[in-house]
């Protein structure tokens, strides 16, 4: 094991290369650029021995990944924001074809107005594509989750693509020390992919052919079943990782000081990490508050959220908004609790940090205090001022 001090993107490049993908297809976009540059550097140095396909758009990126993955090889890519949106059609394709592609998405604002900072609307708007979605809150978690994701994606009960999300700049361009296992240790944890089916010129098949409603319904149901299986497998893989490498970032959620909490903050990504500081500060003032950081948005940790709802009032922070409705995590948390509660649990929601607006631990403390003092509306925009220019 060595310690590497580097940015989220370069750490992601290191993890991707150590997972030994046979094919990487990529198109650069800020703030993902240094990730794919990093992999290109590893190719130049000879550390990355796979095929690197440079294409003309993100739609082609995902198409190339689909083609490569269908031949049975391990496939990786990364994108961000508008790049992810341009892939949208092929994201559905990859998931319905059950191809275990692993992709990093660096959460960035969607324009206009043009802006490159952190915002989760890009990946949240890919919620229904069938991809497993992780949200990371440290560079170490990025490294560990990428390696774990290949193992998860390629499991024969899962066979789903995985999207690993982390916030633009806050993680992608910020250096942190990260423990890097040896190549041998990674190889032992993650053997070569054994494809479930493959395009092979000696045994020709077509994929993505026409099927009738009855068969199509089975394809959709199998995808739903795979997500249910992932709920069981994600904790198992996290446990195995902990046993081998001594590190653990949580299962579907990461619980922090939740045991006796009367209020629990639910957040994702970088806000999830910042919340830990806020929880510590509030605990100093004898306020019993904890954090449940959502690691997997798909599959959604419904059962865990019901448990939390039975214990405490919930405070949900969304760095996204479904216009015309509200914060997406807030809505999903409420829908998970409906018909499941015999308590009078209150759920409060805040929209915060859109467009990369900084959300500090002080802000999170103020949100909590507002809820605890009964001054918060059910759902509000934190710190929003219409008059401000």
């Amino acid at each position: 094991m060595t310690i590497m001090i580097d940015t989220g993107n370069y750490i992601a490049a290191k993890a991707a290369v150590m997972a030994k993908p046979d094919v990487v297809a990529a198109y650069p976009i800020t703030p993902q650029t240094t990730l794919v540059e990093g992999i290109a550097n590893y190719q130049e140095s000879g550390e990355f021995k796979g095929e690197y396909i440079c294409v003309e758009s993100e739609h082609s990126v995902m198409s190339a990944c689909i083609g490569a993955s269908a031949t049975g090889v391990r496939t990786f890519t990364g994108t961000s924001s508008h790049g992810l949106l341009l892939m949208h059609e092929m994201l559905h394709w990859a998931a319905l074809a059950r191809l275990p592609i692993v992709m990093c998405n660096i959460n960035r604002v969607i324009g206009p107005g043009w802006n490159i900072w952190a915002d989760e609307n890009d990946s949240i708007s890919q919620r229904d594509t069938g991809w497993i979605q992780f949200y990371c809150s440290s560079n170490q978690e990025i490294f560990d989750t990428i390696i774990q994701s290949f193992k998860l994606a390629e499991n024969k009960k899962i066979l789903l693509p995985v999207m690993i999300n982390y916030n633009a700049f806050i993680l992608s361009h910020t250096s942190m020390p990260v423990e890097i296992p040896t190549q041998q240790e990674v190889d032992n944890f993650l053997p070569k992919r054994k494809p479930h089916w493959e395009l092979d010129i000696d045994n020709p098949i077509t994929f993505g052919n026409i099927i009738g409603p009855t068969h199509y319904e089975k394809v959709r149901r199998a995808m739903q079943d795979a997500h249910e299986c992932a709920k069981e497998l994600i904790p198992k893989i996290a446990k195995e990782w902990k046993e081998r490498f001594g590190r653990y970032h949580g299962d579907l959620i990461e619980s922090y000081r939740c045991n006796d909490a009367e209020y629990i903050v639910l957040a994702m990504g970088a806000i999830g990490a910042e919340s830990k500081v806020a929880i510590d500060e509030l605990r100093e003032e004898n306020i019993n508050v904890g954090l449940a950081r959502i690691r997997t948005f798909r599959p959604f940790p419904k059962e865990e959220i019901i448990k939390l709802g039975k214990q405490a009032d919930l405070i949900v922070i969304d760095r996204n908004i479904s216009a015309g409705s509200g914060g997406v995590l807030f809505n999903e948390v409420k829908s998970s609790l409906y018909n499941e509660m015999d308590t009078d649990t209150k759920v409060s929601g805040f929209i915060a940090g859109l467009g990369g607006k900084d959300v500090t631990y002080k802000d999170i403390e103020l949100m909590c205090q507002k809820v605890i003092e009964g001054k918060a509306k059910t759902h509000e925009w934190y710190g929003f001022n219409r008059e401000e220019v």
Partner: protein
Amino acid sequence: MKRYNVVTSISYPKIGAMGKTGRWRVFKPVLDKTKCVNCLRCWIFCPEGSIKRNKDDTVSIDYEYCKGCGICANECKVKAITMEREESK
């Protein structure tokens, strides 16, 4: 042939996997063998493999699967293939 037990849509190649596609036809290619020079352009361009190449490089049309797209008639340099409306069945 290798068979897979999968949870997505794949299919194995066989003749007529999509049914008798010749029924889709509105116009039918008719080959005039007296004009045909056996250049095989129709055989190369047919997107459905419905032009049969015989051992002596003459061609014939497989009406079971020909959809009547007309590409063969369009490509034929000696106008040996004409498209004729199918009679109502």
